């Protein structure tokens, strides 16, 4: 039992559970504060999400929808954690996600490309955006958080302008993919049948899981990953050991950007969502990726589960009693969880301290 508690993974898991429970509790308090009557029911509905539907068929379908949106979130959280392992806080993932959406939708709608070229185009566009952040960081010492935020807004406005060329005349939304160019829709490979014919469940699901594993292997089992992590821990030491630290920083942000952009194409190419060309704020997906990355203990496999959880409660927000509450309560909960993730280091430290103390006591008894 004691040995189990000492393991890093177990400690991260416990810390994440503590963050989730506290986050939900604070969300409950907020609801209670707004209106005590329906608070309990509403917080339960947030956690139940698609289980609030009574028919299993409907549940499956809604489960598929949540899953479809979990995929880009997994990619965004992989993007964040990948760069964080290298000591970079890529808040620009939100903008790189936008760039991915822009590239894949434009290639699909304006040029009529197939699904794979569209996806690759999204990867190229978003990794270039990531490269800008990397170049500024390594050669001009520009803080990656601030340049990332600026590029988020630039990417948003650029995307609005570019995608206005392929939008419906009567609405601010881009045209329907399945009407204009069905070949750009991701193949479902029969996965839709598992989810009550939910065509939004596509090849993206297994692909994202594979990429998560690849990222995990890349970071921990390869020379390249080792170099990247060494650069993150101490840039000067890495240079002294003969690693090209500037190249590593740029490559990291390119890969990080590519992951986020790929995530966008995995959502928009299912046809689940269309881009709104009058959007005045950067989509929350990239920011939620931060929550998922930290909640998953900065572990690629952990990110899969934490992303599902974050998306699960974000979707669950729409089931609250809207007579009193608003669906943004899920945003409150997930941002509280991010905040609490800042204390994970402290939680782990006190866990270790407790273990040590009880071991010392045992030693005295012997």
């Amino acid at each position: 039992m004691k040995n189990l508690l000492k393991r890093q993974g177990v400690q991260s898991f416990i810390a994440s559970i503590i963050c989730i429970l506290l986050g939900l509790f604070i969300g409950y308090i907020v609801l209670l504060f707004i209106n005590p009557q329906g608070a309990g029911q509403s917080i339960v509905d947030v956690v139940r999400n698609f289980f609030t539907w009574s028919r299993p068929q409907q549940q499956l379908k809604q489960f598929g929808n949540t899953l479809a949106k979990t995929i880009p979130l997994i990619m965004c959280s992989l993007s964040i954690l990948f760069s964080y392992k290298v000591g970079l806080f890529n808040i620009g993932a939100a903008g790189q996600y936008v760039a991915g959406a822009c590239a894949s939708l434009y290639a699909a709608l304006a040029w009529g490309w197939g699904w794979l070229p569209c996806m690759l185009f999204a990867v190229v566009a978003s990794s270039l955006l990531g490269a800008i952040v990397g170049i500024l960081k390594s050669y001009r010492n520009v803080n990656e958080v601030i340049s990332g935020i600026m590029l988020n807004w630039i990417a948003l406005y650029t995307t609005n302008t570019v995608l206005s060329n392929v939008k419906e005349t009567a609405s601010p939304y881009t045209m329907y993919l399945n009407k204009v160019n069905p070949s750009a829709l991701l193949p479902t490979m029969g996965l839709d049948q598992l989810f009550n014919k939910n065509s939004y469940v596509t090849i993206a699901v297994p692909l994202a899981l594979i990429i998560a594993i690849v990222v995990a292997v890349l970071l921990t089992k390869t020379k390249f990953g080792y170099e990247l992590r060494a650069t993150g821990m101490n840039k000067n030491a890495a240079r002294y050991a003969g690693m090209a630290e500037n190249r590593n920083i740029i490559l990291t942000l390119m890969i990080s950007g590519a992951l986020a952009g790929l995530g966008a194409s995995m959502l928009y190419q299912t046809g689940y969502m269309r881009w709104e060309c009058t959007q005045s704020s950067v989509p929350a997906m990239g920011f939620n990726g931060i929550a998922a990355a930290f909640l998953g203990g900065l572990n690629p496999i952990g990110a899969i589960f934490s992303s599902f959880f974050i998306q699960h409660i974000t979707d669950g927000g729409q089931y609250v009693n809207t007579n009193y509450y608003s669906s943004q309560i899920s945003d409150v909960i997930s941002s509280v969880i991010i905040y609490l993730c800042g204390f994970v280091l402290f939680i782990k430290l006190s866990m270790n301290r407790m273990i040590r103390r009880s071991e010392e006591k045992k030693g005295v008894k012997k």
Partner: protein
Amino acid sequence: MLLLVQYTLIFSSVLLLVALGGCISEHSGIINLGLEGIMVIGALGGALVMSRFSTLPPAMMVILAMLAAIVLGMLYSCLLGIAAIHFKADQTLIGTAMNLLATAAATVFVKAMNTAANPDNHSSEIEYVAARKMFIVNINGFEFNWFMPLAIIVVILVYLFLYKNKLGLRLMACGEHPQAADSVGINVYKTRWMGVLISGALAGLGGLCYILAGVSLWKFENGVAGFGFLALAVMIFGQWKPFRIALAALLFGFFRALSNVYTGFDFLAALNLPSTVYNMLPYIISLIVLIFFSKNSAAPKAEGIPYDKGSR
């Protein structure tokens, strides 16, 4: 033209107040990336006062709204203080969480309030038409806002505080070399708390100023559109020095103002650029500025590093 000057001055005031807040916090050694979130909460405090107490005499109302923004901004900045000073949390992560939380919490709160007042109203908007007029003196079409002189006074005060005052000099010592400061008897924790709280007050005030800049109705779902981060860029461009920050704020304020009024200039309208170009302008300019001014940055040496008494 007059309109351009007016918007430049008011947006510069916003940037100046918030950037000075960030500057003081960083001089104490804490990076405050949550400025954006603090602005939202400060704006919320001010907006609540303005919508509730618009019948008060103007002077009272103005002071009350500013106080509400300051107090709420300070309270919200405690989230950063607790996590970054006592729990050694990652300041970037905490700042990001604060930004997300502020917009979400303000939206939930305002929606709940609106719905409670009128069951059919699910919007996140607060209106303050009457109260906004109290902040403004109309001089031949030029809307003079009380925040403009206030911003100037604050710059001078911040300068005096940082360079001509014992407390301010001690504060800067904690951002440069906290261990050395500690060794001569300065309480690093308390001093950093002071830095964080002052930045909370200034950012809250800046948030109120921002929602008063051009409109008399604010939709809290939108947050403050990256203004907190623009302020950080202003601070870096100003090299962490109050008067340089003031000049930087004027420059950035000008480009932000352009997006509001460019249609009034014939030669700009004749260029026929899409409006999004003007929307992007402040962000592009700040990127360019950062490219040139980040290399030899005069940032406080110990900023962003949690203070550990035991380390050397």
